[in-house]
């Protein structure tokens, strides 16, 4: 069967972020045909969805089944609250739609298993949105795969976002973050990115994890019992050692977006890359403290990810981060957090 000239995209919710559906907006091989969601979604979610529909210039139509029937989409882009990811992705796969989904894949491994089962049974492609097409990450992958540093022996990723999340611990100031703010923890939500780097650069999975995690900065994280920093040691396939440092470390803690780095040690050499580079520093009067001084020079990262996805659709090939890989990342995060709770290393679960 020949590929369509343009794949039709239905955005299913934009509760957390809009960058995933917006990445498809102007791509010549995709046409966003609508935005939909469950009618029972929270009021603020409907407001987000309406805004996304306006930005995309398409209608917002609550009622997922009706929207699918009306628009006959090929692809669903799921960007809801994390707790509804699995429900929406499974529903889309069951309807025969390819799925692009925002992170985290799902809070629980069982939900990821349901997604894996649904997309594989339906024979559709699944892409878990990631940052693997950042130029520095692609360069690290190229160097490793070219054998320039020999056999990989260790990979270490730092993934520190210098964003705030309300007032600091032990502060008397009133909370800035509303009660409806639903952070599941930094490693839980953001861990996909550094773990996807590891997968992309080395092509290896983690087998066991030892983790430490704590709410070190922000009152809201402490109140919710979730981590804002975490460290993870990983025993990986082929005897490779991995480590991951992750955190939301506060705006004053870095000059730019944060310290996002990858270190790889091989048998004959080693490499260090910083994900935001290449970048340009722009300093002007009038910049607010929260404004970034450095700007990335590569503006095509999302475009390359979408290009890769369309190739997967056209050829039936694999996506940059498929459902099984995404499921393993969630299992690795869960093992690390379980380890942090028990003080002992934990095996990363495999699908039954």
């Amino acid at each position, binding site marked *: 069967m020949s590929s369509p000239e343009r794949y039709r995209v239905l955005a299913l919710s934009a509760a957390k972020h809009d960058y995933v559906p917006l990445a498809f907006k102007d791509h010549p091989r995709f046409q966003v045909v609508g935005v939909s969601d469950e009618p029972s979604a929270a009021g603020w979610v409907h407001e987000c969805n309406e805004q996304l529909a306006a930005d995309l210039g398409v209608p917002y139509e609550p009622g997922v089944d009706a929207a699918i029937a009306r628009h006959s989409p090929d692809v669903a882009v799921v960007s809801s609250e994390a707790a509804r990811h699995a429900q929406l992705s499974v529903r889309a796969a069951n309807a025969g739609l390819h799925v692009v989904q925002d992170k985290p894949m799902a809070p629980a491994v069982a939900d990821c298993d349901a997604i894996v089962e649904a997309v594989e049974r339906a024979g559709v492609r699944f892409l878990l949105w990631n940052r693997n097409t950042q130029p520095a990450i692609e360069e690290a992958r190229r160097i490793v795969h070219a054998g320039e540093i020999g056999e990989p022996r*260790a990979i270490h990723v730092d993934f520190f976002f210098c964003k705030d999340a309300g007032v*600091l611990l032990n502060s008397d100031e009133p909370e800035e973050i509303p009660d409806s703010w639903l952070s599941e923890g930094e490693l839980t939500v953001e861990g996909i990115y550094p773990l996807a780097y590891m997968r992309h650069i080395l092509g290896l999975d983690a087998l066991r994890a030892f983790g430490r995690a704590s709410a*070190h900065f922000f009152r809201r994280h402490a109140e919710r019992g979730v981590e804002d920093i975490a460290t993870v*040691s990983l025993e990986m396939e082929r005897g*490779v*050692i991995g*480590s991951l440092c992750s955190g939301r470390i506060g705006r*004053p803690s870095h000059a730019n977006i944060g*310290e996002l780095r990858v270190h790889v040690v091989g048998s004959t050499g080693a490499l260090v890359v910083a994900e935001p580079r290449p970048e340009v520093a722009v300093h002007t009067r009038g910049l607010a403290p929260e404004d970034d001084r450095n700007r990335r020079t590569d503006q095509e990262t999302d475009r390359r990810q979408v290009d890769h996805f369309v190739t997967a659709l056209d050829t039936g090939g694999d996506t940059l981060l498929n459902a099984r890989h995404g499921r393993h990342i969630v299992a690795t995060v869960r093992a690390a957090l379980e380890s942090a709770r028990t003080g002992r290393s934990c095996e990363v679960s495999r699908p039954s």
Partner: protein
Amino acid sequence: MIRLALVGCGRNAPALVAAAAESDHCQLAVAVDIDPQAAGSVARAANSMRHVGDLESLLASGSAEVDAVIVNTPNDSHADIALAAIAAGRHVLVEKPLALSADAADEVRRQANRTDVRLMVAHTLRFMPANVQVHRALAAGELGKPGMLRSHRWLRRFPGPPGGWKHDPARSGGLCLHEAVHEIDQALWLIDERPTHVHALAAPELLQIHLGYASGAMAICGIATGLPLGDGYYSLTLIGSLGAAYADDHHNVHLVYRGGRPQAALTDLRASAVRAQLDEFARAIVEERDPSVSGADAVAALQIAEAAAASVASGQTAHLTENGYVLA
């Protein structure tokens, strides 16, 4: 001016000779090595100071020509030489590790305390200029409460023949005692808390130590010893509740163009660290105070290094109990 005997004229000796030559607080007086060629070479480099074949004779002679001894020999001789110097009433600066076990190190510490000599251990990372800045920022309260320490240290492959002492864990103590005591001491220095959890992983020429603390702080340190000959790499990130510090080569690299791909070049500040360390030792002697890196610090680092070695061997995590670290 503190007069020093340098015992062990091997690979680190030139750095110590250079540091002593620039110091206003100490000077090298005697070079000691069982290899007369090595001792002679170092002696010539240090303005033709005297050189002898063994420390025992020097100390037994009751010579007043040295006030203190630098122990720069293979790891398995550190404790014995330090004890001999202490017994002779000489102050001692010992290369790390102080001994090949925490118990043996504690015996050296006890003897130094008993005889009131100054004992310092060369945990040189505390004197690296970049780390000094991080510690100052922390001590001034600029970073708030330490939350996460992340470090990488990549070294070129151990030089020398495969049969050399560094390649023999029975003589070097293995990576945990020979190298990781640096990172462990650094963590103790910066986080100022004894870790409750020690989990370590190893691969060929690699070691990773993961520390957890009752306060919620955490540290993860990687050491690689298999880089090709050339410069190493160092990186330290300390994240506190109010800010973060990044002290590493990746932020401070220069580029050199000679055709082909540009090459990274680093400003080597190790010499100033060795000099600062030597000066601190000499000043502690003159001021009759404990040096900033004490025998107790070295014992604490070795206890954690032993826990890390046990973690590597067993695959388990060492937990701090009333009886020290226990695998579980």
